[in-house]
């Protein structure tokens, strides 16, 4: 120990210590603990929800989602930055919207990117879809909207027959064969790569395919695992495993009614966490808070042996000295009482 630290600890008993040995023993003990837990309890790995699974097991949900992407009623279509210039999910803190300021960096056109674009691939192989697409593309926007609206009304009376969606006759023009073609594409497992549609061969970006599922299928699956926001959301884990418990304060924000009911809930929770984080960071310099440990008195328990020894009659308290500078040659100068 340097003379400077020795001076700081003046009046305090120093004892031999082996930090390296302590580190090695700690590593071994924690290693045994972790290996034991891993061997005994394993870890969760619930398979991802795929578009293929939704198309096969919940075709009505699939078609409703696809119609929402096509006619623009899906929440992503009006979300706002970073996906588009909408305002449906734009949040702000007072007059400032950091979301708006950041701008559109991940442009998403749900009709083209999630329905029409993938269908153009199907059209290469399926003449009926190609014909339906030609009809749809050749119609006016008003006509397209009328077909989509009629299809939406018909969906309310849809009957599921196996993996197909049976609809009553109606004036929805080419929309029915288009969405039937998209359902086939979904069932084949090829919709995800078509939706994520990287301009390059290699893609590691799943933004669009996850957004395709986010309106109905993902929340329904999450509810089964008790993962929705009102159930403390993403700090939980699938199965009976601990999740990200360290996010408890963040998820607590969403349980506060005033925050949860606000259209700016996410921004408010994040701002609150930012303020609390700053307080934690700057704790040493915040008057009052930096003396809180002394007031709480838990330190008396932590250092109970130290205070017991100090209270003994032989103890001769001596105040610590400021750290000297520069360092001097090693010498045991008053380190032990």
């Amino acid at each position, binding site marked *: 120990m*340097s003379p*400077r*630290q020795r001076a*700081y*600890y003046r009046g*305090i008993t*120093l*004892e*031999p*210590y*082996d*930090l390296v040995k302590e*580190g090695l023993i700690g590593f071994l003990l924690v290693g045994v603990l*972790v290996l034991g837990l*891993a061997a005994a*309890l394993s*870890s*969760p*790995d*619930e*398979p*991802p929800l795929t578009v293929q699974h939704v198309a096969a097991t919940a075709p009505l949900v699939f078609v409703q989602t696809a119609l929402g992407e096509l006619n623009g009623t899906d929440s992503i279509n009006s979300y706002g930055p*970073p996906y588009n210039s909408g305002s449906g*999910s734009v*949040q702000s803190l007072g007059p400032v919207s*950091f*979301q708006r300021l950041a701008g*559109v*960096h*991940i442009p998403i056109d749900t009709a083209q990117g999630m329905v029409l674009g993938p269908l153009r691939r199907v059209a290469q192989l399926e003449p009926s879809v190609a014909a339906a697409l030609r009809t749809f593309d050749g119609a006016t926007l008003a006509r397209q909207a009328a077909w989509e609206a009629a299809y939406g009304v018909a969906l309310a009376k849809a009957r599921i027959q196996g993996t197909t969606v049976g609809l009553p006759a109606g004036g929805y023009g080419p929309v029915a064969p288009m969405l039937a073609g998209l359902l086939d594409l979904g069932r084949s497992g090829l919709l995800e790569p078509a939706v994520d549609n990287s301009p390059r061969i290699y893609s590691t*970006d799943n933004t669009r395919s996850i957004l395709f*599922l*986010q309106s109905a299928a993902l929340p329904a699956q*999450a509810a089964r695992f008790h*993962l929705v926001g009102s159930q403390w959301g*993403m700090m939980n884990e699938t199965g009976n*495993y601990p999740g*990200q*418990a*360290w996010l408890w304060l963040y998820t607590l924000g969403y349980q506060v009614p005033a925050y949860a009911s606000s259209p*700016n809930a*996410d*921004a408010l929770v*994040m701002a609150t966490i930012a303020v609390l984080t700053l307080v*934690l*960071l700057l704790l*040493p310099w915040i008057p009052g808070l930096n*003396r809180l*440990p002394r007031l709480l008195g838990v*330190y008396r328990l*932590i*250092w109970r*042996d*130290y205070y017991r020894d100090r*209270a003994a009659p032989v103890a001769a*308290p001596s*105040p*610590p000295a400021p750290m000297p*500078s520069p360092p001097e040659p*090693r010498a045991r100068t008053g380190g032990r009482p």
Partner: protein
Amino acid sequence: MNLTATLRERLRHDLPLDDVLPDELPAYVHSYVYLFGIATIAALVILIMSGIVLAMAGPTWWHVSPVGHFLNSVHFWSVQAFFFFLVLHLWTTFFQGAWRDGRGATWVVGVLCFLVGIGTAFTGYISQQNFDAQWIAEQGKDAMNAIGVGAFFNVLNFGQMYDFHIVILPVIVSALVGLHLLLVRMRGVVRPYPAPGEPGEEVRP
């Protein structure tokens, strides 16, 4: 000015080997309370070791290999142990007022370890390529977008999150933990609050 000589003198003054690797410490350090920090670092080492093997085998390996799944389990329980011990360390250092006597920087770097650790774990959960990852990414996107971060830190982009998880954030966490350790050794552990009847409140070196 010779920068090399300046740096050498600075290190010699602030980081003498006698303080970096001391063979004697205050007697009150002989307490389980002082083990939480070393247990946190032990868990971090196991996290990094298991993470390196998982990264070498690629992100899909552990889903199809029993050995890979076991290594993922080690990684999973290591992160639980890491935060368990880290939070205990955080609480005990708080109750000690461990920032006293010029140790504010040590506290700040420690809190930064905690915060960047949360980011590392968060990107890890998103990189799992399972339902949990899908759901956390879908839920997390709104919070990131609401504060304008989502445009540049896209939690739905597996490739970007995986890069953050296996390279960028672990390097930052490791550097911060290293700096935290150096600061602890440079300053030494804080003295207990003065006992009843003892004079003085804090020592400003």
